[in-house]
């Protein structure tokens, strides 16, 4: 068995919610806690693609943010290759990268200027950045002529591909993909999915993939966690998860999603 690359243990995170109003009046009102993650533990091995599916607001992005240390959990910890993401932050940061739903670039700068900037932060030489970006963009079928275009002139889907390039070009050992294909057309989506699989095979990259695309998860993930209100309700291979589905012939991951997240919901109502 491969070594464990990502280990999360007993992660809990709550946010303060302002249920009504804000400012001075709320200052004296005791703020309500809303749990985004409750005692989550799991580990991912080298070269594994670990999927996370769950309803909107169930805590997927919160989990990703904790792993990349943009968010500090209330309790629990995350280790990457045996290093604590908070205590060894610089070393660990070099090992990971992330793609998120929102592309987040300097809008007026060109695609290449944006990528050169990030490349420098990861101590990559300009030539190296250019070379890797061109290789990646070829695989994603992104026209190289657009590399000199300012980001604001790109469509959302194209920006998403640039975001994919930004994460992959640093050759991370651990990739955190938070809805990397949301907003892409079916063909582009396939290009990105094929690229993810290629990178895993070529570099043995460990990948965490949050997605709302059930077919995607079924196709490329080795194991899938189903998250509900900040808790993992089930973690297993797509095949074994499908066996759990009742009353449906030839169940899909969509059936898995509906039944496993629906059951919790029913409990709530009763």
């Amino acid at each position, binding site marked *: 068995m491969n070594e464990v690359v990502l280990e999360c243990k007993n992660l809990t995170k709550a946010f303060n919610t302002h249920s009504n109003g804000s400012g001075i009046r709320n200052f004296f009102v005791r703020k309500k806690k809303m749990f985004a993650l409750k005692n989550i533990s799991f580990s991912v091995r080298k070269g594994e693609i670990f999927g996370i599916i769950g309803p909107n607001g169930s805590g997927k992005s919160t989990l990703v943010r904790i792993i990349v240390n943009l968010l500090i959990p209330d309790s629990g910890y995350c280790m990457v290759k045996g290093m604590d993401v908070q205590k060894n932050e610089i070393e660990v940061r070099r090992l*990971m990268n992330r793609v998120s739903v929102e592309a987040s670039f300097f809008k007026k700068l060109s695609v290449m*200027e944006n990528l050169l900037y990030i490349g420098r932060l990861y*101590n990559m030489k300009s030539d190296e950045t250019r070379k890797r970006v061109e290789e990646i963009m070829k695989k994603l079928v992104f026209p190289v002529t657009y590399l000199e275009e300012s980001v604001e002139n790109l469509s959302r889907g194209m920006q998403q591909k640039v975001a994919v390039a930004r994460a992959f070009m640093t050759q991370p050992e651990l990739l955190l993909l938070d809805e990397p294909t949301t907003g892409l057309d079916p063909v582009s989506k396939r290009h990105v999915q094929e690229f993810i699989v290629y990178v895993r095979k070529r570099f043995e990259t460990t990948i965490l993939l949050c997605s709302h695309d059930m077919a995607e998860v079924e196709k490329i993930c080795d194991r899938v966690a189903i998250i509900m209100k900040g808790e993992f309700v089930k973690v297993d291979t797509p095949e074994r998860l499908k066996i759990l589905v009742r009353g449906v012939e030839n169940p899909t991951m969509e059936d898995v999603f509906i039944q496993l997240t629906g059951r919790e919901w029913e409990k709530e109502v009763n």
Partner: protein
Amino acid sequence: MDIASEVRASYAFVARNFNLVKRYLSWEVVFIVFTLVNVLTIGFIGVATGDKRMVLYLVIGALVWRFLSVIFHEVSESIQWERWEGTIEYTFMAPIRRTMMLFGTVIYAVLYGTINTGITLIVALLFFDLTLSGANILTGLLVLIISSFSFIGLGILAAILPLMSTERGSQAAHIIQAIVLLVSGVYYPISVLPEWIRPLSVLSPATYTLRMMRDALLNGRSIGEMWFDILILGIVGFALIPLAIFFFNLAERHAKKLGKLKRSG
């Protein structure tokens, strides 16, 4: 990463910011015209008094203020800018220490401030008959360099504010800048200020910068005569920077606990 590669990585901020200047060039032109007109207007007020020393007095104030406030503004605004663009999470995820990130930002701010003030100085020299015959320019330069450290420190402290709150942070930084302008004797001696404002003058490092700059350039005082004041200003600057970085790190931790870095998704 070793120090050499960290310094190289911090160049990312210099390159990025100059690229941004290039892309927002028309705004850059607007700002420089604005600055020039501002300095010229103040210079002409001096000319109207018929006192040649007054022109120099006012132009020194305008230029020194220009330089220090640009540094303060560029450093404090760097975080704000990234919040607006939504890039802050990606910058903060990169394997570069906060100190080096701020170092890169500061290098850019000083370069930009020097270019900006240099252009303004050249134009001022064209318009006004500024005789610097009795001036001690070397002392003036030293005072300016030493003073920039305090303003870098203040800029980093002000950069903390947008870390805590996107909008209010930037507003607060502008207010701080305005108050420093009022109390530091940029265009008048602080003795004209009401008694109750003067304690603020004492706290502002710009007060000392301006007094010493004028001593050097108007009265020709030498480094030897002012070494104690220069030393104090230096100590304040050198103490302020690590202190500001310390508070910046605290604020970053606080923001990460409350989930304030995220914009959406």
